[in-house]
């Protein structure tokens, strides 16, 4: 397996005896869009601050692009672009000056990239206006431009859709998709689950400072979607008997025009074959697809659907 761009192992932070984040581990690979989910106050921002060296972890290791963040912070951070919480801008400087301030810290090449990156986030027209006069969306885009100045291998965005209108969110989504297609890894924290479901390949779900689930979005959703809807010709008992044989725990719930049963994919295939052999009329089989919200609520114990 290829080397992860971001590798987090056993991260823990204690402040005055209180544990804010405990045993957080995950990997982010090249070109992956990774979602970091959790309710407010779960430790998302504390974790992100540890990823970019703003907070010193009490325990654990962060490796970015092969560099240990603790031992060699400068080298590790040179391949990271980030927005922590809000885009951090100087309102009394122009957009260009804001970019220049950071570019100068990162070398001549970054200074030469300013115009191109401003163009990329569609800010070229207003680049020489004071940031004070920018709308929230423009500030967000300028923040992303700041993060992209160092041509990062890893882009870390904390709640990037906060304050964006639906069109802005849509634009951001396709923009991030394009970046990931070009090989950049994107790490996004959010509590907007529908957003993450549309955007991310993999997620980690954090609650009360601990990561409780990690995995690819597809796998997690499949796992959370055990219910299969069988539409059969009539309420015949033969079909019911077959389905009971394959359903998990043997529970089959009769509904209008068919049955609901919890089954694995293999069980579905076997049950369908047996129904056909027995001459039952099968019109439709669908798995009732859960959303990431269901996964999240199940995982965080916030209720079931």
């Amino acid at each position, binding site marked *: 397996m290829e080397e992860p761009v971001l590798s987090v192992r056993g991260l823990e932070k204690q402040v005055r005896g209180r544990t804010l984040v405990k045993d957080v581990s995950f990997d982010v690979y090249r070109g992956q869009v990774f979602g970091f989910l959790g309710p407010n106050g779960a430790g998302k921002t504390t974790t992100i601050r540890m990823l970019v060296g703003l907070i010193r972890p009490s325990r654990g290791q962060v490796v970015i692009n092969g560099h240990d963040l603790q031992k060699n912070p400068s080298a590790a951070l040179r391949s*990271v672009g980030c927005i922590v*919480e809000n885009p951090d801008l100087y309102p009394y400087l122009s957009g260009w000056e804001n970019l220049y301030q950071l570019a100068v810290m990162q070398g001549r090449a970054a200074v030469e990239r300013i115009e191109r990156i401003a163009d990329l986030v569609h800010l070229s027209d207003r680049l020489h206006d004071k940031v004070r006069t920018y709308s929230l969306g423009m500030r967000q885009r300028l923040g992303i431009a700041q993060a992209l100045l160092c041509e990062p291998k890893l882009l870390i965005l904390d709640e990037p859709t906060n304050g964006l209108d639906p069109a802005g969110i849509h634009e951001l989504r396709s923009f991030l998709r394009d970046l990931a297609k070009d090989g950049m890894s994107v790490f996004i924290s959010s509590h907007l689950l529908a957003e993450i479901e549309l955007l991310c390949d993999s997620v980690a779900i954090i609650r009360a400072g601990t990561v409780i689930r990690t995995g690819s979005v597809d796998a997690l959703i499949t796992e959370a979607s055990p219910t299969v809807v069988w539409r059969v010709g009539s309420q015949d008992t033969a079909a019911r008997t077959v389905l009971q044989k394959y359903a998990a725990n043997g529970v089959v719930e009769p509904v209008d025009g068919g049955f609901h049963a919890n089954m694995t994919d293999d069980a579905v295939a076997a049950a369908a074959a047996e129904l056909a052999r027995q001459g039952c009329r099968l019109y439709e089989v669908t798995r009732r697809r859960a959303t990431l919200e269901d996964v999240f609520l199940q995982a965080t114990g916030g209720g079931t659907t």
Partner: protein
Amino acid sequence: MTFLHLVGNEVTKMLRKRRFQVVLIILFAMMAVFAYGEKQASLALARQIGTSNWQAQLQQQISHAENRLHSPFISNAEKAVLQATIKEGQFELAHNINPSAPGAVSFMKSFMDQGITLLVPLLVIVIASDMVSSEMSGGTIKMLLTRGVARWKVLASKLGALFLLIAMLVGAIAVSGYAVSGIFFGYQGWRLPVLMGFQTTSTGYVNLSHVYTVPQWEYLLMSYGLGFFVSLCIGSLSFMVSTLVRSTASGMGIMMAALIGGTLLSVLATNWSIAKYLPVVNLQLSGYLNGSPPPISGMTFPFSLAVLTVWSVAALAVSFIVFIRQDVMG
């Protein structure tokens, strides 16, 4: 990327925030008011005494001081100041040196002599208190610290920018003092003799054995140099407060309270000798040049320099240690 670029960034931010310009405007306004006031005062004095002859005026001042000296109500510290004034005046009369010869250069001299304890430090505090705390409260510190530049370098660039701005401020004081007061007094006085080497103990004993004169421009170089040193020291202390306190306003409040408290202390607590180890009591460095008695006995020029240096270095050490180690929480 060089360190100079980082310092350049910091200076740009300070200038674009217009904080430095506001300080300059305050400075110009004060210069104009002081110069005008001093002009009016000298006219009023001439009217009162009935002559503009400086020898007669100085003689009047000396006899006035002598009369006050016999008053039973004045403290030892006040007595020392009076005795120093009398001795200096007599010496100046005897050597035909006019201590209040009008001119822009004399105004520059008295502005720094008077301003070194309170006014100049106040202006420095306005600039320095903002350096770190504004980035903390504005959140922009997160950007500065995640760009792969070592934390000590980020802080050092801010300190470099602060020292540069302080140098510009002291320069601006000299230039504006000369330019504005010249309108009232004329642009002369570089070569006027200034008396140096009065040694006054806090008990009021004045030693005249080392007295000599220097041209006024040479005195200015020394007093503005000392003013710059005091400003750097106050700048370092404010810089520490700025790294420790997130709010610029409270940082400024803390420093101003300390400064004004120290000024009061050096007037009131002349008998509390531990106070001499406080930096704010040691700001009157120009006093050692013109022979005013030190506020607390036992203070000498090297002593004051040492106290200021030790406090500044300690303050900067604390700033760097805290800044490098701290967690940047929300």
